[in-house]
């Protein structure tokens, strides 16, 4: 009743190929965009914008990138935080050391990350499953080592690069709201591009590889090209996300922020959000970004007398338990949950 797919006649190829063929979905996306661009920046406080919405968007973007690789192309990566680090460092080097404008340097950070990601994607031609997953850990450790040990990269001081003042066309980006818009203006086009990518030729090749790579090769998909492309595209998104999160949230590129735990969190985002769905990346990022804050706040309210290290440990316990619980209740992620809700709404409140 509330989610209607009928009465929706397609009379041209264009409408048949539309991203959102159902009017209700179009309205929904429109409402979300209005919320994101107009309501949230004016309704939310600076704390909400800078400590919740900005990381949420950045990690959604990174999770989307990992989703291309793991959810669509079926290649597990547990070194993805390192590609974010590559993006963060290279965009800051481009921006602050070579004076390249902000937008090209962020995209440039993504391109460098894509190149590095493609190199680390080469083992995927031979390795499968957990062998590949562990070998992507090599990316994590090698990149961490390079970023801390090569003096040229970090400028020599503790492997960190500070973010200078952000400027676009002479307009300075200072406040939380401005930073929020910067992130959002990168996010929306990239998500639209990503959604179209996975609907198109490349996305279908990835899914074929995921489902069975031997069969995919037989029907004429070049495994080398498409697996390496998957790594490159995925690392591009991670790199852009990394440079955005550094510029607008962390404030300085620091390898400590992009450690292995973040890689696991990213993997957790796509598994909990839903693999092989664009929407799932957002759900998962929301879950992983908001949950620790929520747990932390709840603990602060109810357990103020408890010493802080016990609180930190209880946070870890609750976090771990919730991940396990969620996997047991809904192993295909929140996107599947959303799908179920839509299926129910098709008839509800009528029995049939």
């Amino acid at each position, binding site marked *: 009743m509330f989610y209607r797919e009928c009465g929706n006649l397609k009379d041209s190829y264009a409408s048949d190929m539309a991203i959102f063929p159902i009017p209700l979905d179009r309205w929904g996306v429109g409402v979300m965009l209005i919320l994101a661009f107009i309501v949230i920046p004016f309704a939310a406080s600076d704390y909400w914008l800078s400590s919740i919405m900005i990381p949420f968007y950045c990690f959604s973007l990174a999770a989307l990138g990992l989703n291309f690789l793991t959810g669509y192309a079926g290649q597990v990566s547990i070194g993805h935080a390192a590609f974010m680090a590559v993006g963060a460092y290279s965009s800051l080097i481009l921006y602050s050391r070579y004076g390249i404008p902000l937008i090209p340097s962020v995209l440039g950070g993504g391109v460098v990350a894509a190149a590095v990601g493609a190199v680390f994607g080469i083992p995927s031609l*031979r390795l499968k499953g957990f062998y590949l997953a562990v070998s992507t850990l090599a990316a994590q450790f090698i990149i961490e*080592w390079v970023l801390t040990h090569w003096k040229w990269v970090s400028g020599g001081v503790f492997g960190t690069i500070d973010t200078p003042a952000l400027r676009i066309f002479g307009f300075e980006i200072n406040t939380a709201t401005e930073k929020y818009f910067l992130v959002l203006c990168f996010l929306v086009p990239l998500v639209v591009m990503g959604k179209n990518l996975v609907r198109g030729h490349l996305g279908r090749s990835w899914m074929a590889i995921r489902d069975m790579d031997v069969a995919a090769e037989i029907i004429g998909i070049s495994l080398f090209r498409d697996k390496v492309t998957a790594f490159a595209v995925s690392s591009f998104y991670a790199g852009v996300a990394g440079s955005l999160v550094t510029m607008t949230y962390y404030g300085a590129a620091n390898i400590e922020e992009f450690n292995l735990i973040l890689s696991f969190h990213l993997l957790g985002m796509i598994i909990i959000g839903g*693999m092989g769905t664009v929407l799932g990346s957002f759900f998962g990022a929301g879950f992983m970004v908001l949950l620790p804050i929520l747990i932390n706040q709840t603990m602060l309210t109810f357990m103020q007398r408890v010493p802080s290290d016990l609180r930190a440990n209880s946070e870890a316990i609750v976090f771990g338990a919730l991940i396990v619980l969620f996997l047991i209740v809904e*192993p295909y992620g929140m996107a599947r949950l959303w799908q179920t809700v839509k299926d129910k709404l098709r008839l509800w409140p009528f029995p049939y």
Partner: protein
Amino acid sequence: MAFFFEVLINGLLVGVMYSLVALGFALIYKASDVFNFAQGDMSLLAGLALVGFLTVMPLWLAILCTIGVMTILAYGTVYMVFRPLLARPPLILFMAAIGLSFLVQGIGQAIWGTDAKGLNIGIPDNPIEFGEIWISSFDLIFGAVAGILVLLLVLFFQKTRTGRALRAVADDHEAALSVGIPLLRAWAVTWVVAGIVATVAGIAWGSRLGVQFSLSLIALKALPVLILGGIDSIPGAILAGLVIGAGENLAEVFLGPYVGGGIQTFFPYLVALIFLWFKPYGMFGKEIIERV
């Protein structure tokens, strides 16, 4: 030359410890297809528990109690986490194991505290001289203990009824079920065995580095060992542990100074990657033959 051998032998002894952790991974992976990322955290938990028990009881009882804790953990994990996740894709099981690792870490540290603790179980740590080579007696004794443990495991798996059942489960779940082996109980026993292995590794590393959070990171050291040897191969885990331990130590000492040091963190992965390029299922891993 003596220096070379000293580095080599110390590397091999470190490698024994890597083997132990990798062995825990391999046991569980073989039996239940779970890539148990919490293996390192199990070592941490064992170390913490042992330190806790040692304050109130003698060593042998403390070790028994620690193994008791690991047994409870094993049964809890299998029946509460992995039974509901039966027959799910491996990636979901892997994520569950990551969640489990947060859980185990949190529980261990919540009960026994976060601060670094020393662990002294009374094994002397004196350098012993062999010709011109100096080797720590502690490492040597632990090498021997690890060797005995592996021998016991081999006997257990080859000669006992339970061990044979576990091997059957590892070979083929459904076939094992059909001849009447209780799958979940077999998994639980495997987790207990992995817990005991984790305990030994936890004692070894804990006595060396102190029992603290970083103990759980030895899992990362064991992963390249695991893929080099083949994820589901126990002899592979042992051999690869020795190779990686020795190789890493030699590389750090002889190669490290030229590139700026600290290459221990990724050198094992590099070795494993290069080797796997030629043999994608490791040294002794089961090769999966695919057909359309």
